[in-house]
């Protein structure tokens, strides 16, 4: 054995403390095979164990909030819708709700019900998208394909009722711009019943699959107190045992339709998956109720005049959690400030906490179970 070889062998067998000083830093993202979103982490590792993570965003900032100063307040809803490609309708609607409360403009009942319908449609397609991506990250390709095939049925309903698959384009200040007939809605409910059956089966396959359970159970545990203290929202918070859902505020038609907040208590990745699976089922039920109870009548009222000087808030429950919209007007047709606090932004600290102590191989799973949407987060 040469002297060189001996030194290498000694180093390999040396006590760890002597060999490495401080944790290893592994860059993760913004381009990563399992990560559909441009999110970057510096993972601090000791062996395979994650000691901590330093998140960094800022790859896709588009400055959409500033555009509110340049656009007519009624036209800006088209920009607000383009904040995100998944929660597009809810972004447009949240902006409208904030502006409507500023204007003191009550919207027609039918519009409120239609908004509820589209919100739930979006939740279903978002959660199915998540199911596909999560399955893909776990290497469950066939479930990925099946989930997205089912999502296609939901997107068809979106196009049939709102006119667009991704950008619905149907929320306007003062109501909605499309009025699907009752026959169309009945046909859509039939189509959705098919999707519902399919989703039931897919959820069962995903949640009972032994490999999936091995990957998700007990991974990335977030306690209820930590989730609350770190400001987690949506399925992340509800999976940790806190029953908070912004829909209980009763905006749109949720007050009349009613629903039960889905809660799980384990706080691990599995619990987050279960919450989403149960929420899809619940969304289908809400859509059924909406179509059964939808009143006839106009779907929009004209938004006349300027928004008065002042500010207002709107809060909605997006698929990823609670989102907050703030608008401030200076009395002209162009608003002065528009601000969105998106759910992913609120969930990042909780995600970092959930990663602590997990192994490197579990990091993608944890990131995926918060269902990050960086496009919203950076706007």
């Amino acid at each position, binding site marked *: 054995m040469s002297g060189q070889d001996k030194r290498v062998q000694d180093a390999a067998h040396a006590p760890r403390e002597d060999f490495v000083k401080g944790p290893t830093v592994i860059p993760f993202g913004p381009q990563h095979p399992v990560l559909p979103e441009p999110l970057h982490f510096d993972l601090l590792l000791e062996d395979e164990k994650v000691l901590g993570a330093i998140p960094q965003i800022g790859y896709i900032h588009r400055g959409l909030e500033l555009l509110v100063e340049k656009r007519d307040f009624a036209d800006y809803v088209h920009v607000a819708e383009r904040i995100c490609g998944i929660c597009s309708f809810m972004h447009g609607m949240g902006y409208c709700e904030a502006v409507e409360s500023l204007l003191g403009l009550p919207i027609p009942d039918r519009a409120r019900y239609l908004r509820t319908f589209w919100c739930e449609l979006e939740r279903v397609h978002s959660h199915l998208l998540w199911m596909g991506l999560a399955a893909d990250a776990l290497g469950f390709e066939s479930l990925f394909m*099946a989930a997205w095939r089912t999502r296609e049925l939901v997107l068809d309903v979106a196009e049939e009722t709102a006119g667009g698959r991704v950008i619905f384009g149907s929320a306007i200040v003062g109501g909605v*711009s499309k009025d699907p007939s009752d026959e169309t809605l009945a046909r859509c409910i039939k189509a959705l019943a098919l999707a519902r059956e399919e989703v039931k089966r897919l959820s069962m396959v995903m949640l009972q699959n032994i490999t999936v359970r091995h990957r998700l159970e007990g991974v990335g545990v977030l306690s209820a107190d930590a989730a609350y203290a770190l400001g987690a929202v949506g399925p992340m918070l509800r999976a940790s045992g806190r029953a908070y859902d912004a829909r209980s505020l009763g905006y749109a038609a949720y007050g009349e339709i009613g629903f039960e907040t889905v809660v799980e208590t384990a706080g691990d990745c599995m619990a987050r998956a279960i919450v989403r699976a149960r929420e899809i089922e619940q969304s289908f039920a809400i859509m059924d109720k909406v179509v059964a109870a939808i009143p006839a009548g106009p779907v929009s009222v004209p938004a006349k005049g300027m928004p008065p000087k002042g500010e207002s808030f709107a809060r909605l429950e997006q698929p990823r959690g609670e989102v907050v919209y703030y608008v401030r007007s200076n009395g002209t047709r162009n608003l002065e400030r528009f601000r969105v606090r998106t759910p992913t932004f609120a969930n990042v600290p909780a995600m970092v906490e959930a990663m602590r102590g997990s192994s490197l191989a579990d990091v993608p799973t944890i990131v995926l179970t918060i269902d990050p949407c960086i496009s919203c987060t950076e706007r």
Partner: protein
Amino acid sequence: MPLLPMSRVILKNFFSRPATRLYPFVVRPAFAESRGRIAIDYPQCIHCGACARRCPANAILVGKEPKSWRIDAFACVTCGLCVKVCPKKCLRMDNERPKSADFADKDSRVESHVTPPAPEAGGPNGA
């Protein structure tokens, strides 16, 4: 273990056609409500400019001298407001979406109509 549901799916997949279509040879017919391309019945247009003023995306340009009307299909956000405000009802929103091949060259996304300044009324409608 949910073996049975998946095996049913597998069997079904053996005997069913693919879930995808052979696009662009097979195209799903558009829904009545689908948002597609804005089309104009140009001879009807009186060049009032209402559509251009209302358009949130500044996609429409109406010229007075010579009389012209043009739309940038890429700028249009298919909100449908121009259709609503047109006093002559000469605009409509087709439910068919253009194929991307239709936009193969750069100028094809702009649809442009010009009325040549003819002394008599009833000139050609432009291209």
